[in-house]
C-alpha cells in the first residue's frame, strides 16, 4: 500500500465529511467541485476539503480506492456518497441532511466550518 493511499484512507475514515475537489473552497477550479461544495454548505456539513490538483497521483490513488472515476468525490464517515450530481440531488430532496444526521448525529452542524487539508506526495 502506498503512503499516499494510506493518507487518503485515513482522511476519509477520520473526517466526518471529506470533499475531494479541484482547487480550494475559496477558489474552486471546476464547476462541479463548486456545486458539490455549495450543496454540502447549504446542508451545514462540516466539510474537510482536499485539493487533488497539485499532483496527478492524488486523483489516481483516490479513484483506484473509491472506484469512482471523476472529481469531485464526497465521503461521509468513510462512505462514498457520490459526485456533484448525487450530492446536489440528495441536498434538494433533503436526504443529505438526513444522511448527515444519521452518520454524525443531530449536532453535526456545530462540528466545524469548512476546512482544508493537504495531501503530501509520497
Amino acid at each position, binding site marked *: 500500500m502506498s503512503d499516499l493511499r494510506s493518507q487518503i484512507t485515513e482522511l476519509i475514515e477520520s473526517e466526518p465529511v471529506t470533499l475531494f475537489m479541484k482547487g480550494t473552497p475559496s477558489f474552486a477550479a*471546476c*464547476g*462541479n467541485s463548486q456545486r458539490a461544495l455549495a450543496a454540502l454548505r447549504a446542508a451545514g456539513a462540516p466539510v474537510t476539503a482536499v485539493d487533488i490538483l497539485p499532483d496527478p497521483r492524488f486523483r489516481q490513488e483516490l479513484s483506484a480506492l473509491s*472506484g*469512482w*472515476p*471523476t472529481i469531485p468525490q464526497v465521503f461521509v464517515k468513510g462512505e*462514498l*456518497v*457520490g*459526485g*456533484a*450530481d*448525487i450530492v446536489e*440531488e*440528495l441536498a434538494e430532496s433533503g436526504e443529505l441532511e438526513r444522511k448527515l444526521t444519521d452518520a454524525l448525529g443531530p449536532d453535526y452542524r456545530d462540528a466545524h466550518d469548512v476546512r482544508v487539508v493537504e495531501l503530501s506526495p509520497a
Partner: protein
Amino acid sequence: MTESEQDRDSAASLSGYDAAMATEPLQALLQQAFPDATELSVLDRTGGGDHFQVNVTSERFEGLSLIDQHKLVYDALATPLADGTIHELRIKTKGQPSE
C-alpha cells in the same frame, strides 16, 4: 441553387453535424449498455464537444443506490472518460419514467 440558399444549407448541415459528432458515439454506447431505456439523451452542454449532460431512465436502476446507478453510466462511458473525450459529465438517472 442561389448563393444564399447554399449558405443556409451549409450552415445548417455544419451546426447539425457538429452536435451529432460529439453526442452520437456516447448515445450509441449508452444504448448498448441500456437497451431497455425508456429515456436516453445526451446533451452537449457547452457546444464544445466535451461537457455533457446524460439522462437515462431504465428499469436496471430500480432498487439501486444513486452511487450504483451512476457507476453503471460511468462503466458504459469508460472509454471516452479515460481518453479525455469527456471532460465533464453530468448524470441524471431514473428507475421509472416520471409521471
